[in-house]
């Protein structure tokens, strides 16, 4: 990338600026400091993911198990993927703000948009994962007198776990990357550095923010990838005895 900086004073590339900003102790101190911003960023991201999970996971499990209503679920997921997050924020803003002038402006719209962003991958992966559990196992379980609930909880869900976690993975990355939008509505988080960096013509702050977001996203992804591998380990080999 070419240096976006066109300041009269000294041609400093955004790389130098970024390094300088990241290494400046001042960037790490106080309520606007990096640690604080990271916490804010994660707080909203995690909250959004939790909400999405509470909605999408049970729905996905139910649909996948019943093998009915898949078309509808996937359709909804598609809609969710297609609406731009900032448009969503704009649309819910007046409503949330009416209930709570403070948080209804700075937090809820972003939280809502992020939750909507996270639902599709979790929903679709969950129902696909459940649907693709080896039917012989499902039958074996039924044959042994599992109730449908027990079947879902003890056989289908555990076996679908790797796929479900895969959904969380992409949801997490997307949410962490997009939570930056919150700064437009005066929320904290790493988005602040990007918005302020632009407003204050501070490339170091802008790209520093970008780097931090990327690091956070990739870190979270790596963590979930690890979990996914652990979950996949047991059921790695297919156990059909046919030689």
């Amino acid at each position, binding site marked *: *990338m*070419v*240096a*976006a900086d*066109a300041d009269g004073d000294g041609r400093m590339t*955004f790389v130098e600026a970024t390094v300088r900003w990241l290494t400046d102790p001042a960037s790490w101190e106080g309520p606007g400091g990096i640690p604080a911003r990271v916490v804010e960023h994660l707080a909203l991201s995690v909250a959004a993911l939790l909400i999405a999970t509470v909605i999408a996971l049970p729905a996905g499990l139910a649909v996948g198990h019943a093998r009915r209503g898949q078309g509808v679920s*996937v*359709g909804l997921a*598609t*809609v969710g*993927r*297609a*609406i*731009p997050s*900032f*448009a969503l924020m*704009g*649309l819910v803003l007046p409503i949330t703000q009416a209930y709570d002038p403070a948080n209804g402006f700075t937090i809820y719209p972003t939280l809502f948009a992020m939750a909507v962003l996270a639902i599709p991958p979790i929903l679709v992966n969950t129902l696909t994962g459940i649907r693709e559990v080896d039917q012989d196992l499902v039958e074996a379980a039924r044959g042994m007198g599992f109730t449908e609930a027990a079947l879902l909880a003890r056989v289908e869900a555990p076996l679908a776990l790797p796929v479900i976690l895969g959904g969380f993975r*992409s949801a997490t*990355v*997307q949410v*962490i*990357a997009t939570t*930056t939008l919150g700064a437009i509505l005066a929320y904290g988080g790493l988005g602040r550095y*990007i918005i302020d960096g*632009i407003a204050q013509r501070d490339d170091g702050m*802008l*790209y520093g923010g*970008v780097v931090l*977001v*990327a690091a956070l*996203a*990739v870190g979270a*992804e790596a963590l979930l990838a690890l979990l996914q591998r652990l979950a996949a380990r047991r059921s790695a080999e297919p156990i059909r005895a046919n030689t």
Partner: protein
Amino acid sequence: MLDWGWIGDHLPQLAFRTAQHLELAAIALAIGFAISFAIGVAAARWRVLYPPSAAIAGIVFTIPSLALFAAFVPATGLSILTAEIPLVLYTLVILLRNVVAGFDAVPADVLEAADAMGFTRGRRLLRIELPLAVPLIVAGLRVASVSTIGLVSITAILGDALGGLGFFIYEGMTRFFATEIAVGAVPTIVLALVADRLFLWLERAITPWSRRTRTATAG
């Protein structure tokens, strides 16, 4: 609630923006797919390539479009080229994973049979692996097309000349005009749903073998 009169007055714009939206999305998808496919094929063969390329795709995904635009405009102008850069980059995250998964899903015994009959590497890839990877690859294209159609709006930052339906969304938001936001958002969703169906149909069309149900139980 909606100002139908306004919509009526702006049908030509709506048509033009919809076409532009499709153009931007289609180009992004085509290029994104080409890149992902190339990397995916390589990664499917040389496993070591996958983690790094996946990681890079993931990182790129987190760069805000505004930053990308700011960086590229002086070089590439307020052009479609500039607009496509983030769009293309964002598709990689989804497509790359699915292309690789697609090739991984090809049954080992089929590959072995192919080798045993003297297929060359390239030929095996073209005649055996590729067709069998299609279902998962198309699945990736479905998701990618939908999210790309959603993302096209961000190109509105590059000026009224771009942005597809996103133009309405942005302008609508600067003046808090619900009708205009809806005129941008609703067609976007419709396009996404249509694209999703289209790829589903495409997959059915090019994988006839998977549609036929077995007429006899395997012994």
